[in-house]
Every structure is written in structure tokens, then in C-alpha cells.
């Protein structure tokens, strides 16, 4: 089942550098920045999260910068299972989706039973999407079947919710591992694969995202089935986000350039994108003081 595809890191770095030399200007930039905003999973995943914090973020998710009409909403908010109900209420009938992390996020160090009930709880509370973590310890032990079975079990528990599988690539240490874990997740039923929890550095480097996109591409070429991609953690500038879109476009094509298939997991990206967008409109460099923090 696994392709045993090898990944040469230096070659990946060279390839990724090429994406970064693409120059995105004028209309292409405006269009790209709109897409980025619309692909964001606006995230808060902290021990100190409170209903108040989540409510404020949910409002921001729908009203990115109301002084400027015509902006999209973000794709989703991403919260802990205990905050799903709060988010559900705050979002009302908005089309912004609710993603919830589960499976003893972020370490994943718990029992299958707890991970399943964690997932079911989030779904029952109204989550549209589940962001699970894989068992990295088991993966590094070579217990690939365990990792596979666990993902498959969670997928079943998700019901109608879409499943994003977090590889936590910062703990997998090599791109060969990233590639292999991507394939395991895809074959076990992931709807999306996602780089990181945001709790471990390095997170969504372009090298890692590239490697995962190539796994998605190969799977698509073999089966015709599309898998989504979510880099998360470390993408905080509009420029880096656009480079990611360039990469998606050139590897997977325009087909993937929608929040159906591509997401950014980020908390501070949106405002930088907004500032860039306002700069392209007005020609003036912007100050953060004019953009709300929620």
C-alpha cells in the first residue's frame, strides 16, 4: 500500500525556492489575498480559552474588516471540543464552519476509547470538521498499522464531519517520514491532511507542505480522489501564504484553490493579509492599529 517514495531534502528546498521567486502582482495579488482570507481556519487553542474569547473570534471570522465591503469570511473557526457549543451559538446560521481538535490534542497520548469519545463529543456539540492528531510515538516505533487503524476508527466516529489528520511533522523529523505518514493518513480515510498542531516547531514549512502536496497529487493521479491540505502554524504573513497558493496551483492545479480543498490554520495571518489588501487598494502602507485584533 505504501509507495516507499523517497524524498531528498535538498532537492525539495531547491524546488520550494522556485515557488518563492514567483512574482504575484496587481489583480493576481488581489485575487490571491481574497482566496487566502477565505481559506483561513481562524484558530484559538489555548488552555486559557474562555467562551468570551471564542465569541469574539467568531465575530471576527464573519466580519474581517467591515469598513471594506466585498471581503469574504474565513473558512472556519478552530477550537477545543469544549468550545464547540459556544462557537455554534456565536456563529448562528453563518456558513463559517466549526472545526474542533480532538484525540487528546496536541500530544495524542491517550487511549483509543478516550480519543473516540473526544471525537464523538465534538461532533455531537456541532463540529463540522475534526482535526485529529496521529500517534507520533507509535509511528516512530514503526507501529504503522496502529497509526492506520486509529485514523480509520476516528474517521468512522466522525460521521458526516470531515476529518483532518494532523501529522505533527515537527516530531516526525524527516521528509521521508512526512511522506510516509501522509500516505498512511490518506489511505486510512483522511479528508484533509494537516501539518501541525501549532504547538511544536518547526510547523508548516514550505518543504513539509510541498512533500504532503506531492503525496496528495500521487494519490489523485492513481485514484482520481481529491484530498485536502491544511498547513498550520508559522504562516503569519500574506507573502508566505501566497507562496503556498503558488505551490498548490503549480502542483495540484486551480481545482484545489478553494477552501473546500485548501486551508490555512492560523491566528494572526488574517490581519496581515488585510493590511496587504488595503495597501494594494490604496497604495499606502498600513498600520496594525487600523485592523481589529480578536
Amino acid at each position, binding site marked *: 500500500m505504501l509507495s516507499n*517514495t*523517497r*524524498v*531528498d531534502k*535538498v*532537492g*525539495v528546498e*531547491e*524546488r520550494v525556492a522556485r515557488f518563492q*521567486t*514567483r*512574482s*504575484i*502582482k*496587481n*489583480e*493576481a*495579488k488581489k*485575487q*490571491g489575498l*481574497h*482566496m487566502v482570507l*477565505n481559506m483561513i481556519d481562524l484558530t484559538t487553542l489555548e488552555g486559557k480559552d474562555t467562551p468570551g474569547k471564542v465569541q469574539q473570534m467568531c465575530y471576527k471570522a*464573519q466580519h474581517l474588516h467591515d469598513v471594506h465591503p466585498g*471581503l*469574504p*469570511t474565513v*473558512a472556519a473557526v478552530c477550537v477545543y471540543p469544549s468550545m464547540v457549543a459556544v462557537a455554534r451559538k456565536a456563529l448562528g*446560521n*453563518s*456558513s*463559517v*464552519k466549526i472545526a474542533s481538535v480532538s484525540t487528546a490534542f496536541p500530544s495524542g497520548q491517550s487511549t483509543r476509547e478516550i480519543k473516540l469519545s473526544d471525537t464523538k463529543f465534538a461532533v455531537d456539540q456541532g463540529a463540522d470538521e475534526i482535526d485529529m492528531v496521529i500517534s507520533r510515538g507509535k509511528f516512530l516505533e514503526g507501529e504503522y498499522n496502529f497509526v492506520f487503524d486509529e485514523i480509520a476508527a476516528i474517521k468512522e466516529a466522525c460521521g458526516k464531519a470531515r476529518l483532518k489528520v494532523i501529522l505533527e511533522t515537527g516530531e516526525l523529523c524527516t521528509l521521508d517520514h512526512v511522506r510516509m505518514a501522509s500516505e498512511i493518513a490518506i489511505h486510512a480515510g483522511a479528508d484533509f491532511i494537516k501539518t501541525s498542531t501549532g504547538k511544536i516547531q518547526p510547523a508548516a514549512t514550505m518543504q513539509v507542505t510541498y512533500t504532503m502536496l*506531492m503525496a496528495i497529487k500521487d494519490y489523485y*493521479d492513481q485514484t482520481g480522489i481529491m484530498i485536502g491540505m491544511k498547513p498550520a502554524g508559522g504562516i503569519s504573513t500574506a507573502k508566505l501564504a501566497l507562496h503556498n*497558493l503558488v505551490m498548490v*496551483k*503549480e*502542483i495540484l492545479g*486551480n*481545482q484545489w*484553490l*478553494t*477552501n*473546500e480543498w485548501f486551508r490555512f490554520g492560523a491566528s494572526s495571518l488574517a490581519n496581515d493579509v488585510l493590511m496587504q489588501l488595503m495597501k494594494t487598494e490604496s497604495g499606502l502602507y498600513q498600520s496594525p492599529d487600523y485592523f481589529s485584533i480578536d
Partner: protein
Amino acid sequence: MAKKNTTNSQTEWNYAASPESTSHIRLEKKYQLFINNEWVAPSSKKYFPTINPATEDVLAEIAWANDADVDLAVKAARKAYTEVWSKMSGAERGKYIYRIARMMQERAREFAVIESLDSGKPIRESRDVDVPLACNHFFYYAGWADKLEYAMPHKKPEALGVAGQIIPWNFPLLMAAWKIAPALAAGNTVVLKPAETTSLTALKLAEIIKDAGLPPGVVNIVTGYGDTGAAIVNHPDVDKIAFTGSTTVGKIIQRAVAGTHKKTTLELGGKSANIIFDDAPIDQAVEGIINGIFFNQGHVCCAGSRLFVQENVADLVIRKLKARMESLYVGDPLDKNTDIGAINSKEQLDTINKYIKIGKAEGAEIYQSDCSIPSKGFFCKPTLFTGVSQSHVITQEEIFGPVLTIQTFRTIDEVIQKANNTPYGLAAGVWTDKGSRIFNLTTKLRAGVVWANTYNKFDPVSPFGGYKESGIGREGGVHGLSAYLK
């Protein structure tokens, strides 16, 4: 009102044009010969136009040197050698070369834009590859000038005298740097002739040489066609000929200097094998194939123009290769998003098209990427041929364009034999995850440069040059110095 949550998946996202500005470059209408740090009108009184191959617009008129002009340049070089340069300490020579490197860096963007205008190569390459490598080459050899005795153990190294240097159009500035820097470091003086389609950056380099205060006559730049080059080769007072170009012309030069005291180094053609094993990092190998054949429109003597893929991964590699070719942008060399620029000249485009025709006539299966190419200027779509064998003309002869031939193989012995089955021996590529196999191959491939799990990498410290009919001698690194010392 609920805002729209999903983008329209039918929307195409295309990059807007992003042309590099040409406002800061300075070009004369007419360029004279650079002799003795002066701009000298050619005694032939003849000039020829140099054009932008992407638009066919004339960029400038260039002086056409004849025998008398070349004689003047050689005399200047000889005088500078005897009276100044050979008497100067290595450390002082080095300072001049360092100064050239620094001034080139300062004007790097101007050089990159002019290089792209005159040669057709994409600005991404002239900006990120040609110009920085050219600067670094001067930096590297500057430091050798006062350390020559360490380069040649047990010899007292001495300069040769006047070096005649003839360079090609594929890397105009970089090749000038490859030639001039080691020659000066070793204590020679220089008469350099750029290729007739790409004289401009060498002439801009002449401006820097003058600004850097090099003693008059140390570097002379004479422009012209093949007859100008022949005048250099046949001049009795030239001690060394360094040539980069075709094997055919290399042989003409070698015959011309037979029986004379002139030393030669030749960097000539190639038909290099790029070999992909089934355990290779496939996606990086595909990048290596792309970089191997489409870098600089395939106008690269060490281009990986013969691809060998192990049979059990051939379908996969070819599918991925075709997909990757579709993401290459062909067009305006000055656009920062262009991957493949213009073919250097009408003549070269005709040659490439001739080989594409031959390939089709030989029954090979052609695939070209689906991109559009500009209606004006000289452009060629990225092209590959499958269903070819060693016996096809297109796998034997150097095409010097974006045309790849793909053969499959079953065993390691077979591929070594086929890779070496050519009169050339410039470069080779090997892609496999297995270390012991890499060393087996890199040892057995008869080529001067072997890239393992990479391709088309260059560096001033890295010696470059061919076996067999790909040339004689090395350029770059410590080994490149001996070409200019006795």
C-alpha cells in the same frame, strides 16, 4: 446577510505580468572595441547589430574587428604583460580582481537585465545564477593571485603571457568571468572575444575594467564573428587559446595551433546522460530532469539531454515529467515568472527545429507542453521524445535546445554502457537512494562532472570540463589555474 463562504472552484488564478524594469540600464547606440582601456573604432569600419531575441529589436551596433584590430589588441596585451602585469606582485593583481568583483556586484541588476535582453535567458536565471556566479568567480580567483605556488606543488608557477579567449553565447557574462578571472590571477593578459549574438555584457564588463583602473592592455575585448576569433587563434604572439563552444570549432582551433607553442583549453559540446533508478527520490529526480534540460532553454553544454529511466518506473517518471512541463512558463525573458525564455538566435532556433523534425522522421514520439509562445521572437516549446534508442540521431547529436530524449533501461551494466556510448564526456546525472550504487556509477561514467541526486550545479570552486570530445582541461577551482600557468 450571510457572506459567501466558498470561493468559486472554477476560478482560474493566473499570475499577472511582472516585467523587470529596464529604466536603470544604460546602453550605447554603438559599441567600439575595447583596447588599451580605450574605446577604439574598428579599422574595418564595419559594425553589426545585436538584437533582442525575444522581440527581434536591435539593441545596439557592435564593432566588427578584423586582423589589424586583433593585432592591435594583442600588441596592447603583450605590452601590458611585459611592462606592467608580469612585474606586479600577486597580491596587487589580486586587489584589481577583487575590485572588479565588487563593482560587478554593485551593478548586478543592470548586468542581469542586459544579459536577459541580449541573450533571451529568463531574468530569474540571469539574476539568480549568471551574474552572481560571475561575480563570485572573480572573487574566488582574486584570492589565488598571491598563492599560486600552493596551486602547483613542486613547480615555480609562471604565467603564460597573452591569453586569447573566445566565448559562447549561452552564458555570455559568466563565460567571460570563467576566462578572465583565472587568467588575470595567474598573471596573464587577455584578449577576449564574446560571441557575436551576445557582446553586450562583455562590453559592460569592459566599462568596469576601465573604472576599476586596471592597467591599460591587461584586458582587451574585441567583438566580431568567427573571422575575428580566427585572427586571435592564428596570431603568432598569442601564447594561450581558451575556447568554449562547439566541438566542431574546437577541432578547427586545435588544428590551427598544431605545431605552435600555443597551449589550449577547450570546453566543448556534450550529450550528457541523466540516469534515474527506481529507488530514486522521484519528485526531486523529475526536478533534476527539468533543470537538466530546460535550464537556459537547453543552451547548456552539460545539459542532461539523454534521459535514462529504469523500465519499472518509466511510466511514472514520464507522467510526472509531462505534468511538470505544463507548469513551466515560456515567454518574455524579462518577466520574473518566466521559466523558459527566448532561443538565442534565429539560427539556433532553426537548428533545434531541424532536430525536432529529424526526431519525428525517425519515428520517435514527440510531446510538447501545452503552453502558448509569443508570436514575435525566437521561442521553442519544452519538448521531449520517447520511443528512442541509442541509434537515433536525436540521441547522438547535441541539439543545444529544450529537447529531451528518453530511453529506458533494465540493468545497471546496460545503462553504464549506454551512457558511455558517445564521443562526448562532459557530464552525467545519477539518481538513486543507494550510496554504494552512486559511487559505482560516478566512478564508471566517463564524464568530467557527475551530479548525484542533483543536476546543473555550478560553483567557482568546482572544476568543470570534459573527457573525450567534450574538451581538454578544466575551468574552475584549483584545477582551473593550471590552464594559465607553466
